[in-house]
Structure formats: C-alpha cells, structure tokens
C-alpha cells in the first residue's frame, strides 16, 4: 500500500463510524439484548438516529447518561443504576455494555464495575431473570465501528461461552452483514442440514414484521443459551479477510476450546462464495444442495449475459474493509476494473486482502487506501475518472458531482428505501448486485444517449 500522498491532519466527511455504534449493532443481534452505552446521553441518541434511519426499525440504546459530576467522580453509580433500570423495564436476556470515549478517558473500569454490581445486587439480577451481562471496551479514538462490532461479538463469546459438552453444531460469525444476508445465510445452513449458531443474527431484530403488540424488545437474535453452548461447537466459520491478527469471536473459540476455525473472506461474488460452500460441504459431508447449485449456475449465466456492459468500467469501492474486499473480488470477476478501494478502517491488511482476491483477474492492482475520508477519496479518484461508485450512501455527493451512478451497498443507506434488505452475500447476493450494476450502466448510457434507445 502506498502511503497517503500528503497526510492531512483534519478529517472531512469520515468514511467510518465510531466504535460503540458497531458494538450496539452486534448486541442488537443477540436475543433479548439491550445495548447499553456507558457514557453521556448524546452518543446513544446520535447512534440510535443513525441506525434507525437505515433500518427503519426501533433501536433502543440505553445510556448511563453521565453528567458533569460523574465525569469527575466516575460513572460507576450511574452505570449500576442504569443496569437496574434496564432490567426493570426491559426484562432483557442480555445487557451489552459498551464504553465510550468519555468513560474510557476518565478511566472507568467497567468489567470491575459489572463484577461489583453482580456481587452487590444478586437479588435484583435474579428477580429480573438473570440477564447475561457482557461488557466491551470501545473507545473510538482507536478503531472504527467495525472493530467495535467484532469486539462485541468476541466479548459475548469470551464472557458467555463455556466449556460444555461437545455438540454437532457449528458457529458462524458473519460480521456486519444485512438482515437479508443473515436470513439467506441461515437458509443456506438449513439446506445443508447443518446445525448452526449465527452470531450475531439481526435478520429479525432489525427487520421485523408488523405485529399486533409493540415489542419493547424485538424478537429474534442469537439465543443466549446458544452463545453459551458455542464452546462445544465442532467448527467455526468467520468471515473477514482483514480480521487476521485481530481478536475475534472465531479466534476466541479457537484459543479457548480449540474449535477448528475456517477463516474466510466475506462471500461476495462467485469464488469467495465457492470457498464458503466448500467449507459447508466439508462440514456437512454432503454436496451443495441442488437449489444452490442452480443459483450458482444462473449466476455464471448472468455473468456471461452481462459481461459486455461491464468490461473495463472503472469503479471506486469504499466502505468497511471486509465489505470492500468482497465487493472488489466480485467486481474483478465480472470484468469491472476497480481503480480505487478505500476504507476509513486501518487494519493494515486491506491491500494484501485485495491482492489475494484479484491478482489473477486484474491486469494491475487497484489503488488501495486505508484510513481515508471522503475528501481523500475524492482527491484520489478524480484523476482515475471513475464510471461507477460502489459503497454506502455517504458517497452520493461524489457520484452527483461526477455524474456517475452509485450502487448503494452496506451501511448506512440513508437516502434510499429498503437499504437493510440489500442482499450482498452468496450466489444470490452476487446475482442481485450484478443486476443492479448492469442496469445502472444501462441507465446511465440510455440517459446520456441522444437517441434514447428503448431496446438495448
């Protein structure tokens, strides 16, 4: 990876979000969980609004609502009061406590405070059905929402999974994917007749049906007993090529319980999905179910049908590192030329991951930029004359400026409807992305044409 040509000190239009937001999203995928931010009120409210605008679902995030005196004398008493209140009103199955910049800086020791709480208030906890208490350290001044997400999943596994009886189930840690992706992953696992625990599972909690009663906590999410039983899994799968070297749920299982870990890339596009399916074949001892074989076949058929519209199209891809890696792998397969792959994350592994998934497909590797904001992206991209943008809706201003189409994927999608139903993963996700990209190209061409072809 080349260093930034000129390191700016300031950030303009960040291409990342803060760590506790990722943690809250991960906790939202655990059954009956209430995400709880230890910090001042504002952070929780901002994050709620940000999340709600994408998912169009309620997203309650509790806060210890620290004020000035707590910032001086420590936030412990408010944390404990907050925990009691959440238990009383939500009857949660789990409270996921994430720290914020404020409480990290004043030095609150949350694991210790939680221990004290458990020691001092056993009756309160029992009275409310003994919810699990998981805490995770998420100061935003190191890392992005993705580190926060993975840290929360890892914390849940580390703090809940116990050495239990080995069982036939497997664990799947998909990372931050959409509710639609999660549903589809579960469908695949079921079709393979694999018993699996997907953690987290936001398929229902952040995409709920209309119901008669208002649910104070959304149904769905990974059951807490299933998380506790993860220690006995016979294998684990974890998505994310840039996760290597970071602590993650898969690694926790591996280190603690020697669970074999299949570390895979996010299965976006044909080859990354093939890799995932071959692991499923091995784990299930059976071939890919015919419906999925058919989806794969149709996808290749569509690759062929669409290739002419795509060949050589210069694309800028941005967003979370693992998403960018997966998308780039897919784009390279269909003949699009990723010219810039950018992320606000800074794992140090993005360039290598991109090289691994594209080197036999691309004539030259794309520019890869870590730790950038949209100002940097604009600067780099301008000279590359992109023809298409692929990423979250925060890149829209660039697409507008350059007059090129944008394919909205990932999070957040704040200017379109149904962003959380976007499918990215697997053969089906690739099919949907392919259709959208081809159609965006066709539409751009049609609009720009003086002829106005109605038959293309």
């Amino acid at each position, binding site marked *: 990876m080349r260093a930034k040509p000129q390191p*700016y*000190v*300031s*950030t*303009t239009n*960040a291409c990342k*979000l*803060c760590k*506790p*937001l990722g943690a809250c999203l991960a906790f939202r995928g655990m059954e009956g969980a209430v995400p709880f931010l230890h910090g*001042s*009120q*504002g*952070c929780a*409210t*901002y*994050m709620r*609004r*940000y999340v*709600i*605008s994408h998912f*169009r679902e*309620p*997203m*309650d*995030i*509790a*806060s*210890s*609502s*620290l*004020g000035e005196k*707590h*910032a001086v004398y420590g936030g412990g008493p408010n*944390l404990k*009061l*907050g925990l*009691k*209140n959440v238990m009383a*009103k*939500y009857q949660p199955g789990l409270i996921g406590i994430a720290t*914020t*910049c*404020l409480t990290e*800086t*004043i030095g609150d020791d949350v694991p210790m405070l939680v221990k004290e709480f458990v020691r001092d208030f056993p009756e309160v906890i029992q009275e409310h059905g003994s919810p699990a208490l998981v805490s995770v350290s998420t*100061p*935003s*001044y*190191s890392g992005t929402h993705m580190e926060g997400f993975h840290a929360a999943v890892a914390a849940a596994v580390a703090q809940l999974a116990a050495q239990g009886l080995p069982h036939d189930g497997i664990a799947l840690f998909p990372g931050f994917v959409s509710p639609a992706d999660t549903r589809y992953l579960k469908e695949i696992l079921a079709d393979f007749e694999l018993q699996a625990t997907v953690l987290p599972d936001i398929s229902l909690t952040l995409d*709920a049906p*209309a*119901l*008669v*009663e*208002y*649910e*104070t906590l959304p149904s769905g999410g990974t059951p807490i007993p299933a998380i506790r039983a993860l220690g006995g899994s016979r294998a684990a799968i974890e998505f994310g090529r840039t996760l290597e070297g970071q602590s993650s749920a898969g690694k926790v299982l591996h280190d603690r319980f020697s669970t074999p870990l299949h570390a895979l890339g996010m299965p976006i596009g044909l080859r990354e999905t093939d890799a995932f399916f071959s692991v499923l074949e091995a784990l299930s001892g059976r071939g890919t179910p015919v419906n999925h074989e058919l989806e794969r076949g149709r996808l290749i058929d569509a690759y062929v049908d669409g290739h002419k519209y795509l060949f050589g199209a210069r694309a800028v891809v941005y967003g979370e590192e693992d998403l960018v890696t997966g998308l780039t792998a897919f784009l390279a397969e269909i003949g699009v030329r990723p010219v810039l792959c950018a992320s606000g994350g800074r794992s140090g592994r993005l360039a290598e991951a991109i090289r691994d998934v594209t080197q036999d497909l691309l004539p030259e590797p794309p520019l890869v930029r870590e730790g950038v904001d949209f100002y940097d992206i604009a600067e780099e991209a301008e000279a590359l004359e992109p023809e298409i943008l692929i990423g979250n809706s*925060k890149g829209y*201003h660039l697409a507008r400026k350059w007059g090129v189409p944008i394919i909205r994927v990932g999070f957040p999608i704040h200017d379109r409807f149904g962003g959380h139903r976007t499918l990215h993963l697997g053969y089906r996700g690739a099919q949907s992305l392919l259709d959208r990209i081809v159609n965006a190209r066709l539409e751009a061409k049609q609009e720009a044409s003086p002829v106005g072809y109605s038959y293309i």
Partner: protein
Amino acid sequence: MTTTVFHERQDQIHRKGEEPFQMACDRDSLAGAVSQRACVFCGSRVVLYPIADALHLVHGPIGCAAYTWDIRGALSSGPELHRLSFSTDLQERDVIFGGEEKLYQALTELIDRHAPKAAFVYSTCIVGIIGDDLAGICKKVAQEKGIPVIPVQSEGFKGNKRAGYNAACKAMFQLMGSGDTSSISPLSVNILGDFNLAGEIWIIREYFSRMGLQVVANITGDGRVADIQRAHAAGLNVVQCSGSTMDLAKMMKEAYGTPFLRVSYFGVEDMAESLYNVARFFESIDPEMMTRTRDLVREELTVLHPQLEEFRRALTGKKAAIYVGGAFKAFSLVKAFRLLGIKVVLVGSQTGTEEDYRELHAITDDGTIIVDDSNPLELSAFLQEKDVDIFVGGVKERPIAYKLGVGFCDHNHERKEALEGFVGMHNFAREVYSTVMSPVWRFVPRKASAGLIKCLDADLASPDPVEAVASNVSIG
C-alpha cells in the same frame, strides 16, 4: 399508571384533569431510560450549523462529527460549507498527550483550504476531560488567519441540549458588533430560531418584505457571518423556538438594546399573530404596516382556507400525539391540529421548562397526557392507550409509530417539507392527511384485529377561519 413508567419519572408525566397541574422537568435524564434527548454538543451544532459560510470543526473523536454530517435540512442560498463534516478525529495518542497541536494544524489546514468567513470549533466530551485549551488555540489561529475563530464550549456531558443552545448563542454573540451597519433601516428585523429547513426562512422573509421590513440577518437559517456581524443594529429580533436562541436575544438586548419578540410560524393562528405582533411593534414608525400585514394574512388565508377544508373534513375527530425537542413548537402544533379538527391527546418534549408545560396544560383538553423527557417504552404505551391516529416527532419516534400502525409526520430538523407559514400549514395538513388516510393501516395487525375502522361524524360546521383570524387584531 402503567408499569412502563419509571418510578423516578412519574412526576415528569401529567394527565390533565386528574390532579392540579404540577410537573417536574429540566432534570438530567435517568440512567438506563432510553431518553430521546441528545447532548450539549448537539444543541450547539443545531443552532450554529446553518451558518453556511463558516467552517464548523468538531474537536473530538470521529463519532460526534460523523453522526452530524449533512443530516439536517437547513438550506443555503449560496455557500454550502456547513454541509461538510470536519473533525479532528482524535486518536489515542492525542487523548494521552493532548489534542491542541492537532487542532491547531487541522484548523490552519481547513481555513487555508476553504477560506471561510469564520470558524466555529466545537468541544466534545473528551476534550472537556483532556483539557485542551480551545480558547487559546482559537485565538492564535484567528490572529494568524485574520478571521474570527470561535470556541464553542459544547462538551456533551455538561448539561443537555439547552446548555448547547446557550453555548451557541454565546459563540454567535462574539461575532456581533463588528459589521458595517450604515445600510440598516430602523424598519428591520433579525430572524432568530428559524433554521431554514426545506427553505422555510425564505417563506418568512417574503412575508416580512411584503410588510415593508428589511431582514438584516437570518441568524440561524441560511446564515452568513457578515450578516451576523451587523445584526446588532436591526430594529427588532423576532425569535422563534424560544429555547434555542432566546439567550442570544437577551444578550443582544442587554448589550445593544435590541428589543425582541417571541413568534411562531407554525399554524395559521400563530403565524398570523406573529406577523401582527411585529407590525404592532413598528406601528409608531410605520402606521401603515398593520394594514399591509392584515392584507397579507387575508390574501394568504383566502388561498389556504379552501385547501384546508378538504383535509379538515377527512381528519376531523382523529387523535394526535406530539413529541418534539422544544415545547414551544408543541404549542403551535396543538393549535394547528385543532384547526384540522384533530384532538391532541399526548404532548411532550425533550427539554421543556415548567412554564412551557404549564402553558401546554392550559391549551390542551382534559385527559391529555403531558410528558417531559420521555422514552420509547412510555411513548409506545401512551400511543396504544390513547389509540392515536397520528404521531408527530422526529426520526427516532417514527419507528415507534409505524410499529404500532400509527401515522407519522416528521416535524424535526431532518424534515424536507416546509411546514412554516401559511403555505407550510397547507403542507402540514397534506402530510397529516397523506399518512392518516393511507389505506395501509387497514392491513396492520393491530388494526385488523380490532375490526372495523372507526367512523366519525363530527360536526364539520365551524366559523369561517379566514375571517376569524384576519379580524383578530386588537390594535393598541
């Protein structure tokens, strides 16, 4: 009271008619209750954000800036620097060794890049803890760059949104007094507390110009640094949304003697009354202004009234709930709903004062729930209990309404519909109509299981509202 309400919060809820009015408010949010409130920083950001030719740099970790990037509908007729999100994105080493150097460099770099007319530097929680000398750095950069660089003391934990409004007012006040005031007529106003959401301030400016008034500064909407610098010489400050800019009006009154008037541009009654009050204020210098104003109101209402009638016919008898940031807006909404034949059964705000709630108590009907600093649990319970047809709030309230199968109208800073002025009342009525009358509610499980849609034959006859308002002028 239901179990949904925290014991500690019971005195922040009042049911009109059950007991004499008494309500607690202006408290810190309860830990663990999912308050809909934001923070001090948010309050400052809201008020200063629409100053479009200033640089707004958030000094802190990335989240505070990222979550406020271009999320508000405050429009500008010219520069759009305010739509960018600038942050110092503090990293661990800055937190340990202090962020002053980074702030200095970031400011210098951004001012060189964008040549803003002024810069606001917002302090966030963490900066309050690590103790960076914001004022010192700002002063240094101001000297070097020759533009005002103003620190905004908006550490999130030092109070709630109101404290943020105050910090913003102090910051704006620092800009004032330096501009050339020679072209300012005595018949002039500043518009405070309007954020030009969906271009609303342009509607209001047009009214003022029809009345014969010069608008010196739209301080908080489509704002410009130069206008604010000379705003102190205007004849009158018209202040909407009392919470956000009242402090500024008071500071200006004290320092420059600029008088102020509280106004509201929402709903027919309050809109008309506000214009009349302004005309009345200038009566001694321009006795004709009242006539022009009355004509203006009459003209607008002649267009508006028949438009509203259709909505009113359909909406009469429906029930509404209101939960907004500041209580002042709620007053106007209660009246606007009444004009549409809709009864308000729940009204609340994040940061109302006792006085605000007392006034709400006075203008609402018996049985209405009045609530301060509520949360999703309470709101969902109240909406169900009162079986409302429409909920007015912001993005965070929307899913609560929709999950319950209740219509929704966004009346917050994210909105993209102009709801102020007479035309705004039309838009508001249409918004309400298009959500309440949608066929989708029929399929919502809660409604479907309840069986038939309620059918109301309320009395549609009412006094002619055009005349009622247009003649509602008591000169003197």
